[in-house]
């Protein structure tokens, strides 16, 4: 669906994206993971044609280029900033952006109604966006990206600053979109979101792609061992193991297991192993 071939982007002396190559497959949720400043947003901006790469090429749906305005009809973008008009209602915002994508008449009305319903804002559709909570604005931000029915969705940190309830609602929406067959690129620096949602993950740091695979494969390859922390008569013991269940059974047989905690490997550990630092550093 989207292919980035050896793209590079610099801002003065800063290399924002350095020789990045990746392919987003049709129908998958692809997570682009990395700390702030890793180059995720620059990559997204190049993918939607906002920025031209200094080197490399970007192909959309075969051979189209997102730099061509007409090609951008296939893409929906929910930027990290709330890109909406506060003095317009949700319905007016959606209708306006729908018109920009060539929708009109009945089709426009249907898509606006669908988008409002999808993000749960139908009841508040006439209220001005400035009266919405942060979570509602995030949902409207997502709805605007969907109003023209794009096949590729680029969601840039879509859960920043929202309450847990709205976050879960956004997760449900994203999974529902995947079920409809849409392709989703999801950038985040929350590893648990990527683990929960993404089929594949690319980990970026300092503009480079450090690893690219499914979540399970990355964890298996780079996540290290599980850690069993057990509390017994001799005090606390911490054991790193590839087979935590076997280790727990052994501790129980030896009578050394009163309480335990099991920490499995996760993307945070993967990132730590790849870069030597935590995602949120």
């Amino acid at each position, binding site marked *: 669906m989207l292919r980035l071939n050896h793209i590079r982007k610099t801002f003065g002396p800063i290399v924002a994206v350095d020789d990045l190559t990746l392919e987003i497959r049709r129908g998958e949720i692809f997570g682009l993971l990395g700390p702030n400043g890793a180059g995720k947003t620059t990559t997204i901006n190049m993918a*939607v*044609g*906002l920025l031209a790469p200094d080197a490399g090429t970007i192909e959309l749906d075969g051979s189209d280029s997102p730099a061509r*305005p*007409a*090609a*951008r*009809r296939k*893409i929906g*973008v929910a*930027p990290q*900033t*709330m*890109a*909406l*008009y506060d*003095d*317009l209602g949700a319905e*007016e915002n959606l209708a*306006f*952006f729908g*018109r*920009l*994508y*060539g929708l*009109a008449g009945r089709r426009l009305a249907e898509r606006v109604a669908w988008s409002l319903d999808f993000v749960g804002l139908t009841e508040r559709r006439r209220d001005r966006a400035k009266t919405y909570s942060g979570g509602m604005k995030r949902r409207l931000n997502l709805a*605007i990206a969907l109003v023209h029915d794009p096949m590729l969705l680029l969601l840039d940190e879509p859960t920043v600053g929202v309450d847990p309830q709205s976050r879960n609602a956004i997760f449900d929406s994203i999974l529902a979109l995947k079920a409809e067959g849409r392709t989703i690129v999801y950038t985040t620096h929350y590893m648990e979101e990527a683990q929960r949602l993404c089929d594949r993950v690319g980990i970026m740091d300092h503009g480079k792609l450090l690893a690219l695979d499914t979540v399970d494969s990355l964890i298996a390859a780079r996540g290290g061992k599980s850690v069993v922390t057990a509390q017994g008569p001799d005090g606390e013991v911490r054991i790193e193991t590839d087979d935590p269940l076997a280790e727990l059974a052994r501790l129980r047989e030896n009578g050394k297991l009163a309480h335990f905690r099991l920490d499995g490997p996760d993307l945070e550990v993967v990132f730590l192993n790849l870069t030597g630092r935590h995602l949120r550093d």
Partner: protein
Amino acid sequence: MDQIIAMAAKDLRLLLRDKSGFFFTFFWPLIYAVFFGFIFSGFGETPHGMRIAIADEDGTERSRAFVKMLDDSPELDVVSAGRQEAVDLVRRGKCTAYLVLPPGFGESREHMFQRQAPELQMGTDPSRAAEAGMLKGVLAKYAYQSIQDAFTDPKEMRKQLDEARAELPNDASMDPELRRALLRMFDEMNRVMDASPPEQRGLRGWEPFKVKSVDVAVQWEGPKRAFDYTFPQAIMWGMLACTATFSVSLVTERRGGTLMRLRTAPLSRWRILAGKGAACFVMTAGIAVLLLAIGVVGFRIRPSSYPLLGLAVLCSSLCFCGIMMFLSVLGKTERSAGGIGWAVLMIMSMFGGGMLPLFIMPSWMRAISYFSPIRWGVYSLEGSIWRGLSAGDLLVPCGMLVGVGAAFFAVGARAFRWTD
């Protein structure tokens, strides 16, 4: 085109929902036009002449007749007072000047051939020298008028001649040669009067010169009503406010992220700017049409040509779209864009006739005004409202407006920052 219309409609909707923005684009200019229109029309004032206080210390029939003559004149508004009261009236600014008719004033009018003229005392505020000069001229006019009145009465003239003739021998200081010449002149004047038919005796029918009266009103090249020039100025203020508002809105879109979203839509950059320009154009033209409609219906503005007025509005609106684009690149934040924008527009307005009507500006300021697009906007609007300009006359101002607008738009669009 649908996309440009959609963007323009969205901007107009946003502006109409911004109460303070709409106040400054529509209500403020309307208040300006009406307020200054009434002031320049002399609303609440009745026309009157220069107000002077006269202390008639002579109190004779002739002095009272002179005071009445002045009071009846259109140039003066006379207040009778004692000498001290008259002085106080001038000191307090209630009167422009005071005049004292001294004792003997009336008698001196009966002996006009006396060499010693009566002395009138005139007091004025030194800071009002121009009005004092005008008052001297008015007094001279009515003094000669009283002489002319006296000499057009044959009896009065013969009486004056006889009295003067009788007094000549008593004046020992007079040169004998001059006395003889005057006696001969008085005798000749008496003979002329005796020989003249009764209807031509005295100086009846004599005029120092003939004055042909012309209607100055039809030659006046200024506006017929104050609203004729306050409304064009108000339209400029409305356009200035629209320009400032839309230039800031471009910065707001950039900083708020909606510009980025517009750029991810299937739109070229020029369409995005064209949408903003179209909104600015519709708003500026709409404000102008609305204000003009109010002017025509409510304040009796009668444009000399509606098609040319439409052309002037069209060209002015195009010009301000270009200026809007240019101003939007001058500031990085909404605050700086708004501040710089208004500063630039204020200077343009100050020297372009947006604050002072062009026709009352001093010549040096009028020369500078040619560099302000507001001057061309005001001139083109006035041209089609009261100056009676032809289509050919409007070519230059309209051409300037479109040219300046295009140049500003091109520079602004090229320098526009698409990202923060």
